């Protein structure tokens, strides 16, 4: 018996030492070299609600990504049909996932189908009625292609956002996709949330569009929009009046060049006025396109458009070789820096919308930790006081188990890499209150057994035996709810579920098994006949 007791003591001693080892990194600022090499170095991670920071959930407008894809396909198909000399009318996007057109000659149907099937396998071709203009045809994107494209758009959005955040500089950001088209972003310790939101949320679709100087913008605004044109605005901010003004531009709808050819972007300062501007470098293909456009349109104006708003529309003075361009009229240096970041990181495949934003200031997080710890100290003190007053030495043993329990919870958090949130802290406090329940159940049972005249040794044995089943059972129901909360909870609540779960398991080990070792040692090895209980 005493031999087995030795084994049991050794097991729990090892468990406690391992737990303490896991806790060292959290409570030590500087660990020695050899420690870092061989022993755990993970600190307990604090949730955003405790360390401050921002969490965003973004929704990627994946339909827009598909529409953009179809718009590109429409332009490409136009070129291909022209090359093959297939005559068509009214080729345009139909709804969000289809293309419609009219083929003038029925003889062209076969060659049209062959061309489409080999170049656009994602589309199903549907034949409509023959009208006086020709044969109506619809091309509908297959569902599998749509799903695939939506998923890719979300993944690409995530990558782009990750790039932007990395370049913006945030410590340990956490970015992941959620559901089908959502991106969850956690930025701990963030100082400037609005700037981060602007940086993350900007689509950053950069386009260069020629200004239509053959037509008048006012006519277009009055309703006579020339074919293939659109009106976009420049927001001009007058620092003297403090008012902003919208200047309309009549532009060719088709963009001559887009931001996808950008290889680098950086902030420079204007040598004359010290105003910031962003310089762009295109890759070889982009440089060739840029050279061609500028060469063909000398003395015309080329508008620089970002997310459908015009930054500037300089006159092309000469053919530009070498693939460099600048964006002026930006504003502050911070804005220029952020613009350079988004241009370098690339455009989002589709616009994003903020579905949820949670911001916790650093002082609130600090206050929460302090208040939580105060509550823990007071709550713990009340429990300790009660147990010792009510059960004497046995109460003291329970308190020892309680301390071990708290150590195990903290070590569990560090060891499993779980995140401690404010409700999680509440969960630990709650665990402290619940932990002694097990001891109360055991002690009350032992008292009953002693009352009916059993010896201390017999009473301890029966008491533990009977109470263990009950403790297991009653903890199981709490465990069920903790697991469900973990499954369905978000962020902070999940943290609560984690600490509660670890707390219940740790409690079972310490309150039932560790105290049993101590009692067995006292009543068997030391042969105590009486104990204050």
């Amino acid at each position: 018996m005493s031999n087995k007791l030795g084994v049991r003591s050794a097991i729990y001693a090892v468990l406690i030492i391992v737990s303490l080892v896991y806790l060292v990194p959290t409570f030590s600022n500087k660990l020695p070299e050899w420690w870092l090499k061989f022993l755990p170095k993970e600190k307990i991670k604090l949730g955003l609600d405790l360390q401050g920071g921002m969490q965003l959930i973004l929704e990627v407008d994946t339909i827009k990504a598909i529409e953009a894809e179809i718009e590109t396909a429409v332009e490409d198909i136009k070129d291909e049909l022209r090359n093959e000399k297939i005559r068509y009318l009214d080729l345009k996007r139909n709804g969000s996932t289809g293309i419609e057109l009219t083929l003038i000659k029925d003889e062209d149907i076969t060659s049209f189908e062959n061309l489409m099937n080999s170049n656009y396998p994602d589309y199903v071709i549907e034949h409509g009625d023959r009208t006086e203009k020709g044969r109506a045809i619809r091309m509908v994107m297959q569902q599998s292609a749509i799903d695939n494209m939506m998923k890719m758009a979300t993944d690409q959005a995530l990558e782009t956002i990750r790039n932007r955040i990395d370049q913006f500089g945030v410590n340990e950001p956490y970015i992941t996709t959620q559901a089908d088209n959502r991106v969850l972003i956690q930025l701990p310790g963030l100082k400037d949330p609005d700037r981060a939101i602007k940086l993350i949320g900007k689509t950053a679709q950069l386009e260069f569009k020629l200004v239509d100087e053959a037509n008048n913008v006012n006519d277009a605004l009055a309703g006579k929009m020339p074919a293939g044109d659109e009106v976009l605005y420049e927001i001009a901010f007058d620092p003297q009046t403090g008012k902003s003004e919208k200047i309309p531009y009549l532009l060719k709808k088709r963009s001559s060049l887009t931001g996808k050819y950008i290889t680098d972007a950086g902030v420079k300062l204007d040598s004359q006025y010290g105003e910031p501007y962003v310089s762009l470098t295109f890759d070889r293909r982009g440089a060739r396109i840029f050279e061609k456009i500028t060469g063909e349109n000398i003395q015309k104006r080329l508008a620089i458009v970002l997310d459908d708003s015009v930054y500037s529309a300089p006159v092309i003075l000469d053919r530009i070789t070498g693939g460099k361009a600048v964006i002026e009229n930006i504003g502050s240096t911070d804005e220029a820096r952020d613009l350079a970041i988004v241009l370098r990181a690339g455009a989002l495949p589709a616009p994003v919308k903020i579905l949820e934003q949670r911001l916790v200031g650093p002082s609130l997080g600090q206050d929460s930790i302090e208040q939580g710890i105060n509550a823990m100290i007071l709550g713990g003190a009340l429990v300790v006081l009660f147990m010792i007053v009510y059960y004497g030495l046995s109460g003291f043993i329970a308190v020892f188990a309680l301390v071990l329990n708290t150590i195990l919870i903290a070590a569990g958090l560090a060891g499993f890499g779980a995140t401690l949130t404010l409700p999680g802290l509440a969960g630990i406090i709650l665990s402290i209150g619940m932990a002694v329940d097990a001891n109360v159940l055991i002690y009350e049972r032992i008292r009953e057994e002693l009352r009916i005249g059993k010896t201390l040794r017999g009473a301890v044995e029966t008491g533990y035996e009977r109470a263990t089943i009950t403790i297991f059972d009653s903890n199981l129901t709490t465990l069920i709810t903790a697991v469900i909360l973990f499954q369905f909870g978000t962020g902070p609540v999940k943290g609560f579920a984690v600490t509660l779960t670890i707390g219940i398991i740790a409690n079972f080990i310490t309150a039932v098994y560790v105290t049993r070792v101590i009692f067995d040692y006292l009543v068997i090895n030391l042969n105590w006949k009486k104990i204050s209980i």
Partner: protein
Amino acid sequence: MQIIKPGINIDFLGKRYYAFALSAICIIIGMVALAVNGGLNLGVDFSGGYAIQIKLPSAHDISEIREAVTPINLHEGDIQTIGGKDTAEYTIRVSQSENINADTLNEDLLRVLTAKFGEGSTIESLDMVGPKVGKDLRNKALAAIFYSILLISVYISGRFEQKWIMSIIMAVCFIIVVLIGISFGASMTWLILIAFITTLVFCWVLRLRYAMSAILSLIHDTLIVTGAFAITNKEITLTVVAAILTLIGYSLNDTIVTFDRIREHLRNIPGKKDLAEIANRSVNETLSRTILTSGTVFAVIVALFYLGGVVIHDFAFAMLIGTITGVYSTIFVAAPFLLLWKDNPVKTGKKG
């Protein structure tokens, strides 16, 4: 030291009708408050909108704060002070609106506050939950409540009655009924009501009386805590739902201990058994532990309630009410409900 003397024998069950009346009154007051307030005060997690906590360099009237935030369209919100008179912390709650510029809200708010109240004004926290996410979170909370009821019902009926197959059949029926409810587009409240009623009907039909009594006492506790939130018009947040679910799991502990004792006696006492007498004796015998175990939890929750800070306050409030009703319902609801069946004495579960 002892609080409850070993030989104690209070006639709890004899007073059960007074207890039922008291419970009924408490629940009715809660439900009336619920009706008067037009439902529960759902927090920003579930209803969507903005919840902002600000700190000012010195205390000010709510009307001054309202005036300050008028230019950025937060003035229609519900503005409250937190805590005592000395603290200058306030919450602003406002529903989603076209007029509020979400992208620059943090910056804008800080600007107007600093302009009016001076440097040192800070935004402690800002939560924006869009309608879609609000709906998602509602559904998640619903799912959590639903699965808790499901699993706990299955566990209770299996555990108390040793009829695991029956309890699984019950679970299946339960899911079918709820799926039908979902297909008819039943709302969150209705689904949970349906879930509860189904469970009770099956317990009744299958004669799972321990399970039914335990579940009734859980419903009792949940109604009282919900009622307390209705009366005080406190917000139901995700954390509060977590607290209520934890309570459901925790308050069952005492009931399990007491019911175990009742069955132990039913097994060990030969001859004719008077269930009322046995139940009352069991409640008395376990009274000490029921009160002590809940007492220690109660102590830490009181500490949490007074020292834990604003964010955790409502969580602690729910737990506080819940631990009290948990003890009460074990003694005055769960055990007495066992006596409601006419064909006493009940057979023990073990014998089948």
